């Protein structure tokens, strides 16, 4: 017997711990700030400065290395719970001596896509906030676009692809290429699915961290849904909501029955 649930648990909890650590760092470590945070602070206080001067000061306050580090930290916090299934898949289908290497290659591919994506999104954020400092308009427009995308069949196509755990080769260079390629491909579909949502918190003048947390919950919950034919529909929290409601019902039922269900088997 191969108990897959137990194998998944061996991945799930360490990954969630890493995510929690990253969230903690984002919340309490001002040095490890969220990308754009300085943008907001600066933009809100210097709304009348010339654009070129603003941009220059902005880049001085937010060097690309710091922006990249902040973006990477945000990725770890938000995205690592999304790839529990993928990391389990790689771990379980790789030779034990290659597991760490294959997971590292997957993370490199997946993270590489998101870092490239981050460059574009951060650039977009900087441009928007430079042109409209302290304004909610960029965030509002982005939020609306993200909502339309969220309901579109294209979004579903991306989500379906995010459930496609391909078979990986086991030996040699092919195994490395497959692990990296799996990460890269998954990153592309993942970015296709949630880039708009990721941009939204970056453009908010305030409430940035809370918005990030909300987006993280949304993208995690929507990934719980089964694949389905692409079509226009609102998607997001449905399955998670049903799960929570079911857990509450079950808890009540178990309390009423004195946990008899668990003892009568």
């Amino acid at each position, binding site marked *: 017997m*191969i108990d*897959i649930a137990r194998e*998944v648990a061996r991945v799930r909890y360490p990954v969630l711990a890493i995510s929690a650590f990253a969230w903690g760092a984002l919340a309490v470590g001002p040095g490890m700030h969220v990308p754009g945070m300085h943008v907001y602070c600066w933009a809100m206080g210097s709304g009348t400065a010339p654009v070129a001067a603003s941009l220059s000061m902005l880049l001085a306050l937010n060097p690309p290395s710091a922006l990249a580090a902040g973006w990477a930290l945000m990725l770890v916090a938000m995205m690592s719970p999304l790839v529990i*299934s993928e990391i389990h898949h790689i771990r379980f289908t790789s030779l034990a001596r290659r597991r760490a290497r294959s997971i590292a290659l997957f993370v490199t591919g997946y993270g590489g896509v998101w870092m490239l994506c981050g460059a574009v999104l951060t650039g977009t954020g900087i441009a928007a906030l430079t042109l409209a400092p302290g304004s909610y308009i960029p965030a509002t427009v982005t939020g609306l676009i993200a909502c339309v995308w969220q309901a579109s069949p294209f979004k579903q196509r991306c989500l379906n692809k995010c459930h496609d755990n391909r078979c*990986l080769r086991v030996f040699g260079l092919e195994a490395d290429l497959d692990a990296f390629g799996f990460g890269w491909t998954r990153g592309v579909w993942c970015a296709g699915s949630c880039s708009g949502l990721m941009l939204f918190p970056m453009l908010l003048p305030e409430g940035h961290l809370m918005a990030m947390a909300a987006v993280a919950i949304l993208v995690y919950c929507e990934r719980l849904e089964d*694949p389905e034919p692409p079509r226009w529909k609102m998607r997001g929290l449905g*399955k998670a909501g049903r*799960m929570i409601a079911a857990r509450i019902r079950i808890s009540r039922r178990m309390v009423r029955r004195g946990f008899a269900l668990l003892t009568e*088997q």
Partner: protein
Amino acid sequence: MPTTFTRNNAWDSGGTLEGNSDLLWYAIGVGKMMQRSAADPKSWWYFGAIHGDGPEWGGITAPPQVPPLPSPDLQGWNQCQHATWYFPPWHRGYLIALENQVREDIVSLGGPSTWDLPYWDYFGQQNPPDQFNIPLAFLEQSFPPATNLPPGVPPNIPGSPNPLLVAPRYGPNGDGVIFIPTQAGINAHPQDPNSDFDFGVVTEECMSDPVYTSSFGGGQTGFEHFDSATGGLENNPHNLVHSYLGGFQGNDQNNEQGLMGDPLMAGLDPVFYLHHANIDRLWAIWNVTLKNSNPNDINWLFGPTTNGQPDFQMPKDGSWWRFTPSDVTDISKLNYTYKDMSAPASVVPAAQAFSARLATLHAAPAAATNGGVTNVQPGNKVELMGATQGSVVVKGAGTRTPVRLDAGVRRKVAASLLGASQAAPPDRVFLRLDNVVGTIGGVLSVYINMPEGGKPAQYQHLRAGSIGLFGLRQASEPAGKHGGKGMSFTLDITKVIDQLHLSQSLDLDTLSVSLVSSRAIPGSAPITVGRISIYRQGH
């Protein structure tokens, strides 16, 4: 005190409409249900759609004369649970609801209120010895004349068409001869020993497996989409029986497929429910007679609602019965039982199997002197031994492919087999077939190290098991619930590996795995296996 119903063997009293009153009244009840519209929850068609429906219904050769389907799907349609640990409880509830409806119709026509759904025990070998054949009632063109029927049968029944007769039921050879290739069935319908094809024998081996989760009952259906593993009971006998019963007209997969071979049509064939009564009986025996336990996990007890999925729901007594696995685990509380609840003779208790294995590996004396055999767990570390480098395409009679092994892991297994004892249980070895996709199902048998060009009939000792690809097409759809991942199967190949070890044949860099089909797979619709992997389980 509610009545306890007893489900009887369909082969009792000759298995005919004339001799077996359970079958006679089943046919009468099914006939009444077939007269209703597809939108009526009391209709035969509605119950068929609860298991699964699709556009295929429009092209089914009569009988049965399938009416047009409403669109979109109605409440409760397309619920069937496959490749999941919910397979046994969902089908138990489904049977209870169908049986309740048939009984209601039987009673309304003057039939017995004690009627219960019979089961088809295709493994049965006593009275008569050839129960691998479909009960004769399912082959009769029409009801017998009134003189040959008991009193109380409605006057319009004698001589009328038999609702149990289904045209698209082609059997394992596609010739309309309906039998199940159990070992007895194969003996009675022998294959050419030089054939490249192979009947994957339908067995009760799953009954020796004492573990439900990821084993006898199926893989845990988690909310993270990590697996869709088919359990032992579901794969063999369930899936194999479906595939063989349905078959293809003329044994040609380009022709019409029998209803039982496709989950979206299977519920239309009246024999479906007798097959599932037998599967349900096996689960009941596994619990009651063999004293094995169902999962004690709330995710199983409370069903897929814990994962945000809809309730199990069935039309019953004019309303909707919503149930969870915890509601149907105990048949005594559901007020029914089976005439035969004896364990199959082939069942080997786990401790006994472990002892026999030690003996095979020449380690038994040490175990015996240590005061009996109790430790049968090899440890819970699961590790990949090797795999194919890429996918495997299966067409024609099948294919043979190398599975490369990692030398280090292979040595671990060999060392564990060499040092096997009660205190140091030897590794177990499993073969996984992942991402099995295709458009047409069937049965594939798996052989380890069968020589190139070898004939399966001559290498039965190298057979690792068989897989039934019931539902393959649906599992392969990219936008389906499986996300296009297809089906996954795990076969315990420990016995074969032990034999290779004893014959000094395990010291290899590769094993060859042959996938042998029961019928020709057209090149235009091949089956693809994403990867064949071999795992060890041990310390």
